[in-house]
């Protein structure tokens, strides 16, 4: 029984950490309509920033400032935000699929920089020994993980609260106006370029936060954590959960990560090992099947966008 609880805690930490990134993407795609295909890159910036700020010092590698966890989280958000500002200034004139191609290329570039800039990132060796604050607070993996889950839950709660506040504000309505019809929004005297950039930077900062939570939990970061598949996973979570709905985004993270991992568990129980070893693609097929069926049944995601009117309007 304790094993199940222990695993569940572990599962929730990872899925909620992904959930944070999904919330960031939701602000960009769900509310503003920005097709960011470089999610993994911004998660990577946050992750490495966390590792550099809080990790132990090493010869021949920059950083290792051993700063507190909270400073690492803030630093990760700032670094991802600065990265996003540059990327946004360069690419946000592009629309839809063009923006997707450009941001995808940037994510691959970021991953390659992580792989080759050894002085900053440790190159292929990665950075080891990144502290997890809960290790100092308690003994035993289950208690430590439960405490870490509490931290992640608090971060998720704060992020959702802040995002809800933002999207219900006039600025949030402007995001949707731009998403639906940029020309109409511009004709009302709004500046779509500026607002798109703001939403992009804010979303990427949240992705950076997710990366920081991930490395601090795992204790290690390497370029292999940020392959393009990660971007695909975060997108799937958003689409399955329901874009333009923060609760949907979070639910999507839980469901998709659940399908991803439970499919492996079920296969290992049901299918004999000799077949599994040969039929490597089975899990991928199962994952794909479940996701496609979900979208056929709920085309707008599990929880779609809620109809929203100004809170000043009388019903």
């Amino acid at each position, binding site marked *: *029984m*304790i*094993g*199940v609880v*222990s*695993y569940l805690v*572990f*599962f929730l930490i*990872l899925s909620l950490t*992904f959930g944070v990134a999904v919330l960031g993407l939701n602000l960009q795609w769900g509310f503003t309509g920005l097709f960011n295909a470089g999610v993994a890159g911004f998660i990577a910036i946050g992750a490495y920033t966390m590792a550099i700020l809080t990790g132990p010092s090493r010869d*021949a590698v920059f950083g290792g400032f051993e700063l507190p966890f909270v400073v690492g989280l803030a630093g990760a958000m700032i670094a991802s935000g600065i990265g996003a500002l540059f990327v946004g200034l360069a690419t946000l004139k592009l629309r839809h699929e063009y923006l997707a191609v450009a941001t995808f290329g940037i994510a691959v570039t970021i991953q390659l920089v992580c792989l080759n800039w*050894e002085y900053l990132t*440790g*190159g*292929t*060796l*990665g950075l*080891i*020994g990144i502290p997890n604050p809960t290790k100092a607070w308690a003994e035993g*993996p289950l208690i*430590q993980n439960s405490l870490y889950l509490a931290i992640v839950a608090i971060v998720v709660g704060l992020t959702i609260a802040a995002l809800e506040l933002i999207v219900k504000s006039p600025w949030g309505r402007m995001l949707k106006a731009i998403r639906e019809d940029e020309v109409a929004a511009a004709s009302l005297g709004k500046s779509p370029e500026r607002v798109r950039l703001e939403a992009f930077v804010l979303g990427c900062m949240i992705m950076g936060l997710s990366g920081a939570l*991930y490395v601090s*939990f*795992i*204790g*290690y970061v*390497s*370029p*292999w*954590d940020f*392959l393009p*598949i*990660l971007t695909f996973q975060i997108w799937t979570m958003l689409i399955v959960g329901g874009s333009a709905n923060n609760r949907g985004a979070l639910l999507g993270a839980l469901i998709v990560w659940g399908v*991803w*991992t439970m499919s*492996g*568990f079920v*296969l*290992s129980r049901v299918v004999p*090992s*000799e077949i*599994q*070893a*040969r039929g*490597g*693609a089975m*899990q*991928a097929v199962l994952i794909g099947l479940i996701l496609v069926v979900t979208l056929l049944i709920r085309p707008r995601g599990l929880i779609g966008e809620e109809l929203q009117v100004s809170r000043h309007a009388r019903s």
Partner: protein
Amino acid sequence: MLRNIGLAALTAAIFGIGTTAHAVDCPVKLGAILPVSGPMGQVGERIAETGLFAVEQFNEAGGVKGCPVEYVLRDTQGQSAVGVDAAKSLVDLDGVQALIGAVSSGVSLPVLTSVVVPSKVVQVSCCSSSESFTALAEEGKTEGYWFRTYATNRSQSAMGAKLVIDSGFERTAVIYVNTDFGVGLANRFEQDIAKLGGSITSMVAYNESQQSYRAEVTKALEGNPDSLFLVAFPVDGSTITREWLALGGTDNLIVNNSLRSDDYFAAVGSQYLQNLQGYDSAQPRLPSVASFNEMFEARFDSPPNGPGLHSVYDAVTVVLLAMEASEEITGDNIRDNIRLVTSPDGVEVHPGPEGIARAKELLAEGQTIRYVGATGALSFDRNGDVQAPKMTWKLDGDVNVETSYLTTAEVAELLGMLDE
């Protein structure tokens, strides 16, 4: 009083499950986290099958402590998060006490730090080569739960130092490439040579892809060295060697394995390199390796060519032998007994059902054994690393000839002496 005992029993019942395993819980589970799909899928599939093959052979010999072994395979998809989750699920939900895998270091290391060490289970990788594992182990952060059956690069500096000393050189200059590889190797060489009684006249780093290395060579010539240890790659290495010889440096050269290359010999000119010596990795030449190859071919109708096949077989077999030697199958016992079944002074046992049956008999008699497997004799150092056999070579005219062969045991002995 009675209530207290009841409470204690209840607490034990709740917290006992999943944290401790009973002496014999049939079937005995062995977890494997390997990339059977994704970019490493082709490689991972064969490794996974070979792991299963090792389990089958163990079961043919009667399994672990009379129980059949169940091989629980989980796919990492080559992704660290998926691998970490799979490992956690194997440990918490399946109750495995040992994990085989993963293939890439980028997956193995997160698994080690976030699952294996906190949960106190053993992880044995067939294929992860990163130096970060050794660094982590030296900081004490693996707590001994990490092993790999893939040979590391640690022995390079030792081989260089051995060649210098065996040739009777006393004052050695070192020129090395300024990368993590070169810096690490040169620094270890400095320690190793001191231990063996030689001395260093200068340590000079060079940056790659320069037109000339006159400044570096001049600096290295200071102190009148009688030999040069060169850590370089062929293109820059030949520039450095030419300038070294042109400026009057000795032709007593010791070079690292990357310079065992015809490009290098041709660029410098073989006639100037007749006092050159080097080292390289070698294939083990043992009956146990040949017999593994035969059994593999009989089972799969193809020879075991491909990365990780020999090493995963040994990873699985060593873990299962360590389980057999344990009174209770727990991570701690497996960790300790891996040393017992690969003990240098133990009775030698070989792979295959007969070999395993023999090993089990010996263990039942309370003897220590030395498993000599598909990769040869495994001897894990304190960081959980193993060594591969090495050879030394020189040039005879234009021909590259082998001058000596060091078995794994000899390499391990050399390193053991240097690391004391």
